[in-house]
């Protein structure tokens, strides 16, 4: 496994944990469902907005790490 694979694997492992642990079932049921049942549909928005910025930040970090690796290889 080279450095490139390591960066991608780290991205994927963190992503899968966050995705199924927070935003999609089964994790989402613990966070979103009770909030909605309590009459707070705003939770739907916040979960989406959190997911949106989480993805932007996570992908930006991945892209920067991959680009830095390419530069290191090129240099």
């Amino acid at each position, binding site marked *: 496994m*080279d450095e490139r694979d390591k960066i*991608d694997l780290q*991205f*994927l492992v963190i*992503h*899968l944990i966050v*995705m199924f642990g927070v*935003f*999609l*079932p*089964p994790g*989402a*049921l613990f966070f*979103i*469902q009770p909030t*909605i*049942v309590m*009459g707070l*549909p*705003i939770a*739907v*928005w916040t*979960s*989406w907005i959190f*997911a*949106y910025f989480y*993805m*932007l930040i*996570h*992908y*930006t970090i*991945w*892209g920067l790490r*991959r*680009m830095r690796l*390419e530069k290191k290889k090129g240099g």
Partner: protein
Amino acid sequence: MEWWIPVAIILTYQVLSSIPGILAYKWFKPRELYDYMSGGKTIGLFAMALSIGATQWSALSFMGFIAFYYLHGVPGWNAMSLGYLLISVGCLYGIMGIRARELAEKYKYVTPSDFVNHFYKDRYLGILVGVMLTICLLPYMQIQLGGVGYILEVASGGRIPFIYGALLLYILIAIYTFLGGLKSIAWVDVAQGFLFLIVALGVGAYMWSLMGGISGINSLAITKPSLFTIPGGIGAMTALYMLSWTIPVQMGWPIQPQIFMRLASIKRKEHIYYIPALMIVAVTGLYFMQQYLTWIAGWIVTPGFKEPDKLLITIAYKNWDPILFGILGAAGVAAMTTSVNSQAHACASVFVNDVLVKIRKFDEKIALLIVRVAMLVVLFIGLCLWFVWPWLLMTLGALSSSIGSLCAVALLPSLFNIRFVTRYGASLGIISGFIVLVYTEFINKYPYGIYSGGWGLLTAVIVCIIVSLLTQKYKPAPLEK
């Protein structure tokens, strides 16, 4: 409403925005099949990002997704929009895209089958993947042409029968796609994608005011609470169904050739690093928000609407003046044509490059002519299918994407160099997954509350692993880095 005003705007915009496609041919004439399929790898980040976005903004984003959320409520919204954000973009656009682009640069590969062939050294597996991707694209094209028919029918107050509108669009798309292939399509996508972005913003703002802002959502949550919690408005979206729906559907979209071929054909490898962020900002940020606000506003102003696919255009038809409605219709038709052009191009490319050329070698010029004619034929088949199979748009879209996801068991190992998977494992995984998908969709529908695509993908993965374990002596040779 003066019916001819929106119709004139829609048709004029379609004709004008097709001109860049013909101009692209003037500057870039495909000389071989590879040029036609990949645009000669001359399409840069900006054009490619807009082209990928425009290809994704289809009849589904304008009609089908809205109907899906209208019926299922927030669980449907989570399955689609969160799923797209987290699975399609999150798992595949970046890390799959960069590997596809790297290998594409080295070996002049374009279609998913090219990568599968290279990895497993098995042309029959490549043909199987090509056939599966051709099958999955046909219903998808049918959706777009059906959507065009819907919009023109509503815009003209039923005066323009579906067939005339769809035929006119067929001719326009056929001309520039026949000539310039991916390059022409990308240029048209840029011209049409812009309008859709602007209209998505406008529709979102209108729906926000129509539903009375955040208080509209809160009041709907009180009057119709089932829309805001599992299992959704019609009681179908349980947690298990949601997962079994979103995983295959969201995996299938980036693997479908019209998107995959773009990722593999972008001008420079580094551009891939920017694509996921652009997709997150534009596709998920703009179009999913517009759809979210539309279904909420739809429930507030027209509760219990019988034809949810037509919700947005019906609200606009009743409340907007003809010019604004014409602009909305033009954006809607643009969203559909930018998808159907790419799908027809990808479907023909896959069929010729992955199936015909693997069976018999052709001279490059002949192959170029065949792929052009094949494009006309598959576009026509898509048009005809609408008459024999006019389903809910989203039902067809999800099915089409799920079929595409089955190819993941062969494609992903080839991109990530997972040598454990053998060609027998991948082939039998795809075939068994497809059989189970068809069985659980058409014969024994959704057993145990699991979506047919979920059954298909699960079967494909399990069979692939078991057969690969049993056939380890046939595992592929390591790929060069």
